[in-house]
């Protein structure tokens, strides 16, 4: 990107405005943050980087007053504060721009920006004219051509983001937190956003910038804090760091041998995806998967991986391209046809998409086969039970009784039920989206062993995963998705954390022929 010469980044010598000390936060058994720390100085732009799941979003929510820390302290101007709710965080001068815009679709743009802070006339009445004028003034400063009176419904994501920025700007924030604000913005819009961030910084505010785009991080920020697995890793001046160093710190851990993929001689091409495009989501995605192969789709959250597999399976529509299974073209937008052709999709969110939580284990496990198990249109519970019993034995599902609701099972066992449900359809292509998210280590390796075994039996497996060790341990090939495009196809021998991360963050894209 070509920028106007940025003012030389001042050394981070400003007063510390906001600090987190040794902050811990757990959700149930999962520790999202352990001993996290952060220090924001007046007049600095500070980057927070880390892999998916490093705890960045949790940290943002603590700053925003959405979550309270379990341990540790939040210091404002050196004094411990409790940000009990979002209102308290606002009162403390902390503005947060979330990854997903949080607007009121029915209200006007101006009201969205000034909600709860509308200019008042006497008697605490809202000054509507003043409201629109202040909104216009803000937009002028931002260089946005938006009508303050139009409803927020129907705004493009970029415009919504601009409204969020105007909101943050409108209450003279001392601390501006931006959680991946540029994901949906075009070059010009990013420039505009950065100009705002710089002008805020110049007037003494602290800016916390969270992004996976290193060019932007290095372009805007004075200091960089790296997080990994919920912990603080390092904080340094940006000019003392290189992209390589940052990536290494983000990844940082050993690739464990937890994931044993047995080598299989790949067979025929089973799944053939050509030029798959869904406007604004992903474009020109082509790949093959052979029998016995495990192919991983790696990339950052929001890169479009889940959307691609959903389109392949027919849940989401696509605008161009084709999907072939065992040489036969698949009708688009028709999951039933995809199932008939031998594709199975284990979805990302097992509670919402994979299971009917209130139904029994056996009912869930046989949902995909209810027509095959039926006789004369009536489901035979005996056939249902037998089928469920067989599969739960094969997958070692630990359930009290198969008639218990599936919600009583642990996350790992629930995932096995979802797998049983799909494996019982005897697919030739198995798509698994985040197969081990939120399940314990022991069950995790069982799931991995199972996938490896299935591949050895000739199944073609497509795995979407945000966990790099899992990707590197399981995949024969790693397809890296970045911003809706396949940017790299890395064979097992060449795949390591650096190569995948660099491609995923758009750094290696230049070196790859597309």
């Amino acid at each position, binding site marked *: 990107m070509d920028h106007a010469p940025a003012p030389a980044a001042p050394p981070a010598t400003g007063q510390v405005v906001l600090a987190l000390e040794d902050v811990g936060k757990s959700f149930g058994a999962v520790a999202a943050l352990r001993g996290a720390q952060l220090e924001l100085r007046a007049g600095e732009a500070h980057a927070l980087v880390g892999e998916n799941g490093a705890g960045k979003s949790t940290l943002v929510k603590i700053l925003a007053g959405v979550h309270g820390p379990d341990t540790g302290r939040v210091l404002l101007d050196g004094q411990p504060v409790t940000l009990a709710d979002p209102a308290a965080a606002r009162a403390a001068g902390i503005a947060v721009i979330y990854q997903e815009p949080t607007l009121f679709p029915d209200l006007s743009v101006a009201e969205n920006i000034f909600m709860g802070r509308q200019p008042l006339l006497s008697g605490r009445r809202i000054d509507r004219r003043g409201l629109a004028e202040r909104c216009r003034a803000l937009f002028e400063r*931002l260089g946005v051509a938006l009508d303050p009176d139009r409803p927020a419904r129907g705004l493009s994501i970029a415009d919504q983001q601009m409204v969020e920025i105007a909101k943050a700007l409108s209450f003279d924030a001392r601390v501006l937190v931006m959680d991946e604000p540029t994901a949906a913005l075009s070059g010009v819009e990013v420039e505009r956003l950065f100009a705002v961030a710089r002008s805020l910084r110049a007037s003494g505010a602290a800016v916390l910038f969270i992004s996976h785009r290193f060019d932007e991080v290095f372009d805007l920020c004075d200091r960089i804090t790296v997080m990994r697995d919920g912990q603080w890793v390092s904080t340094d001046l940006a000019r003392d760091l290189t992209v390589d160093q940052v990536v290494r710190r983000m990844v940082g851990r050993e690739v464990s041998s937890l994931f044993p993929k047995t080598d299989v001689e790949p067979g025929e091409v089973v799944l053939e995806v050509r030029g798959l495009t869904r406007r604004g989501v992903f474009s020109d995605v082509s790949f093959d998967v052979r029998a016995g192969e495990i192919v991983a789709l790696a990339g950052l959250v929001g890169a479009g991986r889940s959307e691609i597999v959903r389109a392949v399976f027919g849940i989401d529509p696509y605008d161009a391209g084709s999907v072939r299974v065992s040489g036969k073209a698949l009708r688009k937008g028709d999951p039933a046809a995809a199932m008939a052709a031998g594709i199975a999709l284990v979805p990302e969110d097992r509670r919402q998409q994979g299971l009917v939580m209130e139904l029994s284990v056996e009912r869930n496990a046989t949902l995909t086969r209810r027509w095959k198990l039926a006789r004369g249109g009536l489901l035979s519970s005996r056939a249902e039970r037998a089928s469920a019993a067989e599969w739960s034995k094969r997958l070692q599902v630990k359930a009290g009784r198969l008639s218990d609701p599936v919600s009583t099972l642990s996350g790992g066992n629930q995932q096995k039920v979802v797998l049983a449900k799909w494996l019982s359809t005897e697919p030739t292509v198995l798509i698994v989206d985040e197969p081990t998210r939120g399940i314990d280590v022991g069950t995790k390796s069982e799931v991995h062993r199972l996938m490896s075994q299935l591949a050895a039996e000739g199944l073609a497996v497509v795995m979407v995963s945000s966990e790099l060790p899992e990707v590197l341990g399981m995949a024969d090939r790693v397809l890296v998705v970045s911003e809706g495009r396949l940017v790299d196809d890395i064979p097992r021998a060449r795949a390591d954390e650096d190569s995948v991360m660099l491609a995923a963050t758009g750094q290696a894209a230049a070196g790859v022929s597309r």
Partner: protein
Amino acid sequence: MSAPLTKTPAPLPEELAAPERTGRRGAALVQRLVVARELGILAALVLLVVVTVIANPRFLSGQNVRDLLLSAAILTVLAAGQTMVIITRNVDLSVGSVLGLSAYATGTLLVVAPDLPLVVAVLAGMAVGAACGLINGAIVATAGVPSLVVTLGTLYAFRGLDSLWASSADRLQINAADLPSGFKSLGTARLLGVPVLFLVAVVVVVVVGYYLRTFRSGRELYGIGSAPEAARLSGIPVGKRVLTAFVVNGALAGLAGVLYAARFQTLDTTAGTGQELFVVAACVVGGVAIFGGSGSVYGAALGALLLTTIGTALPQLGLDPFWRDAAVGALILAAIALDRALQLRLAARLRGRNARSDR
């Protein structure tokens, strides 16, 4: 909290200044849509009246119109309160029972103490309603249970309480003869020829409408209904606002109970039965979105007036009053269709505007 450091951020570089503004062409688009919606109901109302008058010129006689306004008054007060609740993406199904309880309480109070000033009786009825609303709102706001279920429960609970009270007090019915004449005259009193009860309803609508449009907390009710999660993130005290909406709605249902007592003067424990769905229907016909976030109390009031008018106009048109329910049903469907059409038009216009403002 200490003063912000960023009083006057530096201006943006010249090349990033605003491209040509789209101007004021679409000023107050949101507002215009609301007005368009209200004009739609008003047109339907006028059409209905004109058709009925053609069929039966006496439809617009003084007494007939006064009866109509009296009937509409109670429904309008209920609709004004219900609007506040629906806007927050909630609903209160217990208002019919609250009306019954408040009417009975007010009647009992006046039988026991006939010399009580009128204002005290009215305030007592509203207090009974507010207490019911407090129960509804507290459960909804703290327990996180959908208001549909909570108020379905209290619909029966409040009605049961009413019956229990009436049977234990051995006063299953309160008759006109038991009520003080000062109170009874409220039901028939006129000001410049207009029934006082209707004027009360008009005042309620104007006050609620002004509040919802002009005060921060009123706008926050819209925000809560439009996007609950966003409301939480932007620091709106969601629980407190929802609770307030339920309490105000309860108080207005209580007021409706007092109006009911004054108008009908014969009270038993079935007063207001079945009103809840009729009220919700009035709101929906009036353009209050059932999923919250949009609609106005003026629209809801027009909806109430329209539904009441249908009830009295059908016999005049020579139709069996049994047709009323079918007509109300058709009206609800028509209102939904109109909402959808307006929404699509708005979406199309906004798309056009986006195309203009994009470089």
